[in-house]
């Protein structure tokens, strides 16, 4: 039965590239967001889900990737197709620094969460005070529609890029799960002391997970920058964005290959609907109330997330 589910999922994924030809423009936008947040959730999943190191500062990596690719493109004319990897590398460098400090000094649980939050906030404050990148007002990219500069007239191009990002990240995670590395990460999450006792170099594997996760998130930053064309420190480095990333992975099932994707399919449409319908009636923040309740419900009743439960349902 589980095989059937996987086959169905693969078929669904195979159908995704064909959908824009049938979809209206609104559905294309919606699915682009689902893919992109699914990608971010998947990137977080490496360190937050598999390795169990709860990072609440992933916005820092996204922000660094976004600002790097945008500034390189606008000021130096370097194409974001290259800039996204420069941004990813810089984000990975910050990830390595945070990981080094956090893991070397043995910060766990709440203390690690706070360390990641502190670094994200430091990035936000520095970005809002650096006039060269627009300060608190933000950084704006002029739309030229040049595909070489990662700018597309056709919204469907973004759909495909987001889909490719999500599939690439999911492929990496699925591959990792088969490797010794992935098993080490899960083992570290379940019982770190036991791992160390068995001679696993937990520091090394946690570092690798952090660097990979922050690199992917930084690459995603380029998409964010050139999909929205404006960057504000308070939103791109803000804690709410980190929460948006975490909540998708957790609701869908942290530490599973399909969890973050499922989470994004559940939550992103909810957020979009709420933004469109509730906000018009002055119902600000309604979708975040639903997020909060879902998070509480998941922790209390479904601590491993929606995907493992769904998988078991089909398994029977």
């Amino acid at each position: 039965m589980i095989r059937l589910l996987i086959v169905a999922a693969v078929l669904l994924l195979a159908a995704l590239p064909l959908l824009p030809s049938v979809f209206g423009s609104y559905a294309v936008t919606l699915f682009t967001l689902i893919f992109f947040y699914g990608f971010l959730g998947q990137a977080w999943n490496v360190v937050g889900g598999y390795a169990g190191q709860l990072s609440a500062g992933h916005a820092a990596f996204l922000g660094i990737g976004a600002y790097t690719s945008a500034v390189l493109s606008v000021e130096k004319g370097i194409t974001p197709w290259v800039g996204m990897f420069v941004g990813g590398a810089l984000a990975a460098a910050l990830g390595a620094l945070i990981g080094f400090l956090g893991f070397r000094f043995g910060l766990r649980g709440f203390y690690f969460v706070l360390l990641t939050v502190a670094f994200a906030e430091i990035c936000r404050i520095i970005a809002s005070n650096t006039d060269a990148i627009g300060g608190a007002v933000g950084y704006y990219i002029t739309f030229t529609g040049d595909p070489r500069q990662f700018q597309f007239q056709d919204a469907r191009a973004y759909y495909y890029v987001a889909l490719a990002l999500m599939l690439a990240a999911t492929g990496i995670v699925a591959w990792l799960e088969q490797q010794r590395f992935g098993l080490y990460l899960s083992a570290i999450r379940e019982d770190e002391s036991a791992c160390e006792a068995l001679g696993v170099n937990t520091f090394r594997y946690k570092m690798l997970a952090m660097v990979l996760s922050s690199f992917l998130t930084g690459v995603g930053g380029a998409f964010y920058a050139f999909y929205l064309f404006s960057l504000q420190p308070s939103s791109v480095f803000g804690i709410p964005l980190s929460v948006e990333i975490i909540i998708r992975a957790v609701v869908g099932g942290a530490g599973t290959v399909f969890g973050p994707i499922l989470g994004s399919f559940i939550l992103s449409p909810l957020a979009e609907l709420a933004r469109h319908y509730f906000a018009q009636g002055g119902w600000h923040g309604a979708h975040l109330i639903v997020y909060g309740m879902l998070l509480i419900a998941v922790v209390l009743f479904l601590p491993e997330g929606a995907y493992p439960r769904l998988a078991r349902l089909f398994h029977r």
Partner: protein
Amino acid sequence: MLFGGVFSLMAVGLTLIFGVMRVVNFAHGDMMVWGMYLAWLMATRVGLDPYVGFLVCAAALFVLGFVVQRALVQRIVDAPHEMQILLMLGVALVLENTALLLFGPEPQRVRSGLAQATLWLGPVFVDVARLIAFGVAVVLTLLLSLFLFRTDLGRAIRAAADNTYGALVIGTNVRRVYAVAFGVGAACVGAAGALVSPLLPFQPPTGLQLSVASFNIVIIGGMGSLLGAFAGGLLVAVAESLGAVFLRPSLKELVSFSLLVVILLFRPTGLFGRRTS
């Protein structure tokens, strides 16, 4: 500097909850914002000055804290930290956005007759409002210490914090003690919210900043230490105002975050914390 007293009261509430239950209240700042909105409601609808109304806010937040503990936190007291953090994050999202739904995104400020008054104290001149906020916050913290050290319920709370199992063995109703402690912690932050409501413009997202600020303070002072939270509040307030003077006002938070990172790395038990296993 005078903000420090209110910072301290806020952090004392957080550290009390953590000290007793080992649960970090991620909704702390949002509870404070609810205290502010209650003070605002009372000031605009009933005409009650926030310097009196803070008592009502504290009582209302006590009830909120008590209920949240009973309904949600009690179920995850023994769960892994990650789960506790996610649950409290959920509570924070609900509280913040319910405020957004009810009160809207516009910044508010409570008008108080005292907010405009100033006073010359020798060579320095002081806002009366800030002075009152500071004084009341200090008095409330002292009252809380008296409660914890001189009353039976307070002793039960400290017993449950030191040794939950031991407290259970000698017949303490630990569940009730937990709920009361959460309530008292929420009441502290509710009162703190009401006290700064005439001084600090607030809107629902302010809660997140306040949560993070109170995490800073309790980590710097030492998780679970009342004295640490109090001293940490003053220290952070002084450090931030020095940062605002010597750097730029918008960079003042950078000082406290850098302080946080240094403390996290080199003295994770904080300046006044005891080393626990």
